[in-house]
């Protein structure tokens, strides 16, 4: 296989240098060029035809989002956003994903060392290289109406819980799923691989778009009908039960499958505390996180759904779950919300 050709766009000379040096040590990755601003980047992209671009969207004088939108229009290719950990950075990163970027990564800082970042960036570049980038971003499904649940079904769903796991491509996939859920939906718990702070902006954005409440989870938050809790970046989220009520425990701990939050952690706790009352959904993403947890859920009697290959940005996590026999129903993204409600 040929090396993955990478271009680094960042206004900081130091970042360009460090990224280029670190990535050049990775097998299968070749840094073909760097650019300090969008105009140089465009010229080099045309000339060097990289497979993946890393882009800092917070560049002085230049609007990274505008550049990204133009790039996706004229030279669509996988773009990984490298951003700061500030709330503004989180918001911009989210806008970037809506504009067609495939992944978000935070710059090294308090939560990540350069070493962590290097491994994560290399992983994300490998994932991004296999992504199918669509020219136009299709938002039609988001405007699609929510799915109805009959009142009969509702009575029986009070002790149900829906656990969802996603990674690369998951932010857009989750949007499509959560926006279809009606306010009567049982409590939803979500792990989306994302750096710390980005999950705050992500939850706020989904909350604006959805008929249900979407909240970045805090330790002890109750899992309630009509509410989805998103695990905060850099923390694991576990389902717990107290009497008839579910709540979440948000805590730190070792990374699982190189991830924190990890889908496996959420799914295993869901298997333990909700058993056959749970529905597990595994969406697009690279790697194998969630597969083992989903096996546990299945063993505990939960219904399980996996996103199909054709609609996945990266068919990794659902593939592993299918391989391990954990997935009961395979469905395209457009059908996930409906299938979830059908098995409640």
């Amino acid at each position: 296989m040929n090396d993955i050709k990478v271009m680094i766009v960042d206004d900081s000379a130091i970042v360009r240098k460090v990224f280029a040096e670190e990535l050049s040590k990775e097998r299968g990755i070749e840094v073909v060029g760097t650019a300090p601003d969008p105009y140089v980047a465009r010229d080099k992209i045309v000339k060097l035809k990289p497979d993946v671009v890393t882009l800092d969207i917070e560049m002085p004088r230049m609007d990274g989002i505008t550049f990204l939108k133009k790039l996706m229009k004229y030279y669509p290719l996988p773009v990984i956003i490298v951003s700061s950990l500030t709330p503004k950075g989180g918001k911009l990163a989210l806008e970037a994903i809506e504009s067609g970027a495939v992944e978000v990564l935070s710059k090294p800082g308090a939560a990540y060392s350069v070493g962590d970042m290097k491994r994560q960036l290399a992983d994300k570049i490998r994932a991004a290289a296999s992504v199918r980038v669509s020219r136009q971003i299709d938002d039609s499904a988001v405007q699609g109406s929510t799915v109805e649940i009959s009142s009969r079904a509702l009575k029986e769903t009070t002790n149900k819980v829906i656990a969802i796991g996603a990674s690369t491509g998951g932010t857009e996939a989750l949007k499509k799923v959560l926006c279809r859920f009606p306010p009567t939906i049982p409590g939803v718990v979500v792990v989306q691989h994302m750096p710390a702070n980005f999950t705050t902006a992500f939850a706020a954005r989904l909350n604006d778009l959805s008929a249900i409440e979407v909240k970045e989870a805090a330790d002890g938050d109750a899992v309630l009908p009509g509410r989805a809790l998103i695990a905060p970046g850099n923390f694991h989220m576990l389902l717990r039960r107290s009497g008839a009520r579910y709540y979440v425990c948000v805590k730190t701990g070792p990374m699982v499958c190189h991830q924190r939050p990890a889908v496996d952690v959420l799914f295993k706790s869901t298997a333990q505390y909700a058993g056959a009352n749970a529905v597990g959904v595994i969406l697009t993403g690279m790697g194998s996180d969630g597969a083992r947890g989903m096996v546990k859920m299945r063993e505990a009697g939960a219904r399980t759904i996996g996103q199909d290959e054709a609609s996945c940005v990266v068919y990794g996590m659902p593939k592993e779950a299918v391989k391990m026999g954990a997935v009961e129903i395979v469905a395209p993204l457009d059908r996930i919300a409906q299938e979830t409600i059908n098995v409640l």
Partner: protein
Amino acid sequence: MAFNVLIVDDSSSMRSIIKKTLQMSGFDVGEILEAGNGKEALAVLEKEWADVILTDVHMPEMDGLEFLKVLNKQDVVSTTPVVVVTTEGREERLDELRGLGARACIRKPFRPEEIKKILADALGIDEKAITEKEDLDGCDF
């Protein structure tokens, strides 16, 4: 660094003059794209990446005003800065063009120095700063 410029004018000789003036100005011109009216310009923008647009006002089929109006409704290309190049002298007309988002209005004929400054302003670039950054980039690699 080079900037792609789209020149919209119904007169091909005027487009040539503008092109030549641009090239003489010292402004870093990349690709030069051309269109005979607003409608053609929109078709060009569907396929080609322009960094800045220079447009005439009086043109057949779709004039500069209509072009700006349609451009503003587009998703991606609406952010491309537009500079109006015209013989139009009426202030209210120029105000209308500015109201539609034109970054500057420049009277035909214009001098190379004028256009360089206007384009740099429209693109929001500080030429000195960019030269320095370029040097820094050169040191690294």
